[in-house]
C-alpha cells in the first residue's frame, strides 16, 4: 500500500509542477504580449472596474465565474469594438463553448435548444451569482422561467412526485442527453427503476402481477405528478382504472401475458362495438384506423393527459402524419382559428366520413352522419354549410356560391369557399390562393385581366 501510494504520489507531484510551470509560462507569454500591446497593468480586467464600479458588488456573489474572478474581462469581451452585443468578442455560443466544448454531448439523443443554440445566459449569469453553476435562479425556478405550465402543474397536482419537487435535474440533464429523449439522464424504465423496486410485492400487486419491468412507465404514469392516485395520467381508460388488464391483454399467467387479445381496431371493438360499426359503415374511413396499430395510432390504451385518451394535443397528433398541412397553417399570413386552437375536429371527423377530407356534415345530429331524413350533400353545399357554421357572410352579402354556381375554370366544379380560400392557409392574406386580390378574381373573371 505504501509503495502504491508513493508510486502514485511522485508522478502526481511532477504533473502538478509541470502544469504549474506551463501556467507560469502562459502567464509570462501573456504578459510579454501585454507589453507588446503597451497595455497598462490590469488592462485585461481590473482597469474595467474603474468605470464599471457597480461591478464590484457583483464580485461579492457566492459563485463567481472563473474568468471574472481572474480579472480577465477580455476573455469574453472586446474592449474596443465588436459586432456582437455587450462588446462580446464572439457570439455567446462561440464564447461559452470555447471553454465548455462538451456541455452539450456530441452524440446527444436530445438537446435543450436553449443550450444547443448557445443562449446560455437565459439560465446562467456569466459573471457571478448566488446560485450554484451561476444560475440566475435557484433550483426549479430557473426551469420554470420558461416552463410555466409545468410550474403550475407541479404546484397544483394532488399527488406529487418528490424528485420533481427536489429538482428537475434529478431526471433531466439541462443541456443535452446522450442517453435518452426528453433530456432524461437515463432511459425509461431504467431511470424509474433507480428509485422504484419493481420486484417489490406492493408494486407487483399494483400491476396485477403483470411483468412490467421492461414497460415504459411513462405510458401510464405522469412523472410530473397527477391528480389521479398512482400518479397515473389524469384520463385513465376505465378497464385500466378497474385493473381489468385481461380485458385487453392475455392473463398474467399466460406465457405471453402482455400480448393483446386482438389486433388493431378489432381489440377496441370488443367494448366499443357500436362506435366501430358506425365508423366502418361510412364511405371513407381514416386509413390509419385500419392499420396494424389501429385506434392506438391516436389513442393511448392506458392513460393520457389529453381528453379522449389522445396520445398528444390534437394539432401535434394530426401533425405527425399531416405535417405539411400543419406547417402551411403555421406559415400562413392569416391563421384559421380552429386550427390555431388545435381543433381539427371542428371540420374533420378523425374516424370516418361520407365525404372527402373526412369532412363533418354540419348541423347533423352526429357530426358527420346525416341526421334522419337528411341526404348526403353535394360538395359545394357541404363546404358552404360547414364554413357557414362559423362565418355568417351568407346572412348579409356574399359572392355567389353553391350548387348552382358553375366555376368558370372547370365545368365540373361549383363555386364555394374553397374556390378562393385554402383553409389550412396560404402565403397570402385571408388564406387566398392568389395575391394580389386582382390575381385571385381574374382567375375566373378573365375579362378583367390586364
Amino acid at each position, binding site marked *: 500500500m505504501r509503495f502504491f501510494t508513493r508510486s502514485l504520489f511522485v508522478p502526481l507531484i511532477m504533473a502538478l509542477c509541470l502544469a504549474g510551470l506551463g501556467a507560469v509560462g502562459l502567464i509570462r507569454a501573456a504578459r510579454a504580449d501585454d507589453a507588446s500591446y503597451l497595455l497598462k497593468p490590469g488592462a485585461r480586467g481590473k482597469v474595467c472596474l474603474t468605470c464599471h464600479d457597480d461591478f464590484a458588488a457583483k464580485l461579492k456573489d457566492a459563485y463567481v465565474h472563473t474568468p471574472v474572478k481572474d480579472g480577465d474581462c477580455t476573455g469574453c469581451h472586446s474592449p474596443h469594438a465588436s459586432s456582437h452585443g455587450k462588446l462580446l468578442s464572439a457570439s455567446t455560443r462561440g464564447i461559452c463553448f470555447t471553454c465548455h466544448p462538451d456541455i452539450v454531448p456530441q452524440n446527444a439523443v436530445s438537446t435543450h435548444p436553449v443550450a444547443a443554440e448557445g443562449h446560455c445566459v437565459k439560465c446562467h449569469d456569466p459573471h457571478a451569482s448566488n446560485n450554484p453553476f451561476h444560475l440566475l435562479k435557484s433550483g426549479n425556478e430557473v426551469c420554470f422561467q420558461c416552463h410555466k405550465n409545468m410550474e403550475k402543474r407541479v404546484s397544483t397536482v394532488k399527488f406529487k412526485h418528490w424528485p420533481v419537487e427536489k429538482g428537475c435535474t434529478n431526471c433531466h440533464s439541462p443541456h443535452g442527453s446522450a442517453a435518452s429523449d426528453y433530456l432524461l439522464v437515463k432511459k425509461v424504465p431504467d431511470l424509474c427503476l433507480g428509485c422504484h423496486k419493481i420486484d417489490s410485492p406492493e408494486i407487483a400487486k399494483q400491476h396485477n402481477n403483470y411483468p412490467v419491468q421492461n414497460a415504459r412507465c411513462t405510458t401510464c404514469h405522469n412523472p410530473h405528478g397527477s391528480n389521479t392516485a398512482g400518479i397515473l395520467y389524469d384520463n385513465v381508460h376505465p378497464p385500466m382504472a378497474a385493473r381489468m388488464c385481461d380485458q385487453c391483454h392475455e392473463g398474467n399467467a399466460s406465457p405471453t401475458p402482455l400480448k393483446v387479445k386482438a389486433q*388493431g381496431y378489432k381489440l377496441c371493438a370488443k367494448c366499443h362495438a357500436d362506435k366501430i360499426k358506425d365508423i366502418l359503415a361510412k*364511405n371513407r374511413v381514416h*386509413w390509419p384506423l385500419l392499420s396494424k396499430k389501429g385506434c392506438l395510432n391516436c389513442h393511448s390504451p392506458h392513460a393520457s393527459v389529453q381528453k379522449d385518451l389522445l396520445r398528444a394535443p390534437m394539432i401535434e397528433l394530426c401533425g405527425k*402524419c399531416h405535417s*405539411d398541412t400543419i406547417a402551411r397553417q403555421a406559415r400562413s399570413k392569416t391563421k384559421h382559428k380552429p386550427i390555431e386552437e388545435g381543433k381539427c375536429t371542428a371540420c374533420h371527423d378523425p374516424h370516418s366520413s361520407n365525404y372527402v377530407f373526412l369532412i363533418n356534415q354540419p348541423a347533423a345530429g352526429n357530426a358527420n352522419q346525416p341526421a334522419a331524413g337528411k341526404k348526403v350533400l353535394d360538395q359545394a353545399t357541404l363546404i358552404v354549410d360547414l364554413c357557414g357554421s362559423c362565418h355568417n357572410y351568407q346572412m348579409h352579402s356574399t359572392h355567389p356560391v353553391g350548387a348552382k354556381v358553375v366555376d368558370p375554370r372547370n365545368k*365540373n366544379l361549383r363555386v364555394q369557399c374553397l374556390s378562393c380560400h385554402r383553409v389550412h392557409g396560404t402565403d397570402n392574406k385571408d388564406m387566398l390562393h392568389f395575391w394580389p386580390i386582382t390575381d385571385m378574381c381574374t382567375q375566373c373573371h378573365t375579362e378583367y385581366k390586364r
Partner: protein
Amino acid sequence: MKGKLKPARAFLTLVFLTLLVFFPGRSFALMRIKLQPLTPVYAAHNGGLLAPEGVAVSAKFHEIVISDAGHARLLKYTFADDKATGCTEIKLPQVPYPLKVQVNSKGEIFVLDGRQRKIARLAPAGTFEGYVEPAGMPDPDNFVPKSFRIGPNDDIYVLDIMGARVVVLGPDGKFIRQIPFPDGTGFMTDLAVDESGRIIVSDGPKAVLYAAQANAASFTPLTGSLHEYIDFPANITTDSNGIVYVSDQNGGSIILIGKDGSFQGRRLGLGWNKGLLYFPGQICLDGDGHLLIADRENNRIQIFKIVE
C-alpha cells in the same frame, strides 16, 4: 474564321462527350419528360364526374376505366387517338364506393371498394364476378387492402395495411407470397409494380419510397425523405424503364423518381384550369406514352401525353 471555329467545335464535342459519360442517357430522357395536357374527361351519364378516385387504362383494349366515387359507379371509355370517347356506366350494389381500379390482360376489371374494403372482380363487360378472396394467405383475419395493382403476369399485389405487408396473389386469388413493411415507417399509401416485378411502396407521412426486387423477402429504401420535393406522396406508378411517377396529393403535382431513387423533377402544379391538379388520386400509365390522373378535387380525369 473557319480555323477559329474548329477548336470551338472540338471543345463543344468534348463537353458533350463528358456529359454523356457522367450523365446516363436515361437521366437526359427523364429531364426531357414533359407532360402535354390532352382533353380531360369531364362529362358522363347523369352529370359530370364527382370526386373520381381511380383510373386505369388498358392499351391492349384501348379503354379507360374510371372510378367515379362520388356517384358510386365505374365508367368505361374507349381511348384512341389521344381521345376518350363513348361511355358505359357500371353501377353495382356490390361496389358502393369505388376507389382504386385496375384492368388485367384479359380485360377483367378489379376495383377496391372503400366502404367494404374489398377488391371486386368484374367481367370485361362490367358484371360482378365476386370479391378477391385470398386463398391460403397467413393471418387472413388481419387483412385490409388499402391499394392494389395487377402485376405483369396478372398477379394481384395488395397493400395490406392491417397485416403491414404487401401480399402477392395469383390471378385466381391464391396466395403466392408476402413482404412485410419495413420497420419504422409512417403510413403506407400506395404501391406500384414494374415490368420486372419490382414492388415499390410509398410512405406518405415520411415521404419515402421503398422497393423490393422481384422475389425479394424485404423492402429497402429506394429514396431518402422526399419532403424537400413533395408534400404528401399518395399515389405511385412506374413506367417500363422503372421510372416512378409519384403524385403529390397536397401539393398538386407529379414528381419523377429515377430507377436508382434519384429525384428527377417536378411536373404540373396546383390549380383548377386544364393541366393543373387539385388533390389528385390514382395515377396510371398506358405504356403508350400517356399518363392519366384522377384529378379528384377537380372532378375530372386528366390525360397527358408524355413528350420527350
